[in-house]
């Protein structure tokens, strides 16, 4: 059973802004999964203890990428959200993507054959 990374509030934000639609977009999925591979490889180095990195560290680094991705901005602005919390939105998308990644790994769908 893959880990669930989003808190109750993050799930509410995801549902409210339909962020799962952004997360599940197949065009960006591959690029982001490769980014997660890179994050896991870097944070798995001896410098950081050499083990599997903490989910929170992976999600934070992934949120850096999402914070720079203007397709997220476009997705949220289309929904006319009042005063969007961009930090939480980036973190929620990152958590959702990492959940997808873990599930794909468990199902043998990533890395792609």
């Amino acid at each position, binding site marked *: 059973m893959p880990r669930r990374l989003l*808190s109750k*509030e993050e799930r509410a934000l995801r549902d409210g802004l339909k962020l799962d639609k952004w997360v599940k*977009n197949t*065009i*960006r999925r591959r*690029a*982001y999964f*490769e*980014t997660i591979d*890179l*994050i896991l490889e*870097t*944070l798995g*180095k*001896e*410098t*950081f*203890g*050499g*083990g599997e*990195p*903490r*989910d*929170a*560290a992976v999600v*934070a*680094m*992934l*949120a*850096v*990428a*999402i*914070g*720079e*991705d*203007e*397709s*997220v*901005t*476009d997705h949220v*602005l*289309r929904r006319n959200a009042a005063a969007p919390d*961009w*930090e939480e939105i*980036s*973190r929620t998308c990152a958590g959702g993507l990492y959940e997808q990644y873990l599930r794909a790994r468990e199902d043998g769908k990533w890395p792609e054959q």
Partner: protein
Amino acid sequence: MKPIVKTEDALREITELAETVARRGRASGEETLAQQNLVRRLERRPELTETFIAEAMRALEDEVDLAEPVSDEPHQIDPAEVDREVAKKALARLKLPQLRRIAEATSLDPRGKEEDVIERIVRAYDVDASEIARLVLTNEEAREERGVTDRLFPIFNEGIDLESAESQLRMFVQRYLRTGIARWFVFQDVERHDDFLFLNGVFRTYRVEPKGEAEDFSLDATESALGVRVRVNAVGRFLEARSRGTTEARSGVTAVSKTLGLRLWEGLPIETRPREGNLLRWDHRSVFVVSFLQDQLAREPLSIFNLTSAQFETGDSAAVDENRPSVRSVKFEGTHLLSSKPACELLVEGRALVGISALLRFAPNPEEAFLVPVRVTLDRDHVTVLTGFASNRSQVARDVQGLIVNRLKAALGKPLENESGLERLAEKIVSRARDADDVTKADILAPGQSDDVTAKG
């Protein structure tokens, strides 16, 4: 053991990684948006990278010990880090269920290890020392250093002639009485009221440490002096000692009982003996404590907000063979403990429930309500009541303490007041003990339950 890593090395790698993934994020966005005719952008994008880098560094601290460079001052730890760690240490006084409750109330993730939950709370409160102090004081369990403690010692004498008691006690003012090895009680003064009097005194004792080497030996004696106030009532069957610890309370009570010729009970006057039903199989102390919880602590203006610990005697005595492993008591800590299966099982097995800690709601009038931590413990020859100050003004704790002590005095030595209500509660407890399913909602002596077993004021 966690590896030690230089903070600047870890930060450099993280920053390089952040730059790479940020580039990838920008590229991915542009690739997607290139397929759209209309694109919505922000005029000024928020700068979040530093925030997420700091978040990643905090998460990585669980994997490695980051060795920070000292500041310009030699051996000086970063003051911001000291503030954060001090705030964390303050919260570490609370137990994990209390920390989870705070996290939930602050809309934070309550899951994970104690340190994870503490970290989230400290971050959510922006390391605000005053807010953290308030949180700790509001949520901590009652403790002697920040509360009022009374110990009720039962006596055989029904009534005491205060006139005569006052003059007898006054004869010993500014004198002392030895009450044990290197233990003395010093009579200080007597305070007379209409139907009771206070004897104020000081308990003096010495902590002794043998020292020395070769031919030079000595005893190092360190004195401690602790205040005690013993209340002697004209009517009633208790001497009440107010002090922090049991030793000084016992010393004061011994001094008063010897001076006035009072006879102390060897045990506790518990007469709450049920006549039938499930309760017949329970230890008489459990019957008393559960009945007290139901009929006295859950009665206006008090109500039980959360039962946070329950202490049981297991009845296994190690007196016969010191080498035999044994457990004499077991203490459960958590939330709404009487709804939990393990606590119900011990009650039903006939183990003695001898102590509880609870967070009570005290509503002295319709406009005000306070949460107050209390602890009630049955000891061999006395009952201890402790009410913590929490973050309330101290008078609130004193008012609650007075209420509980008076209700305790009224309940001890009396038969069960509400046996049918208690039997219904016992049925729920028996059923919980036998229930194989997990308990998902607190329903025994918990707030919001609609039992008709609770006695009305």
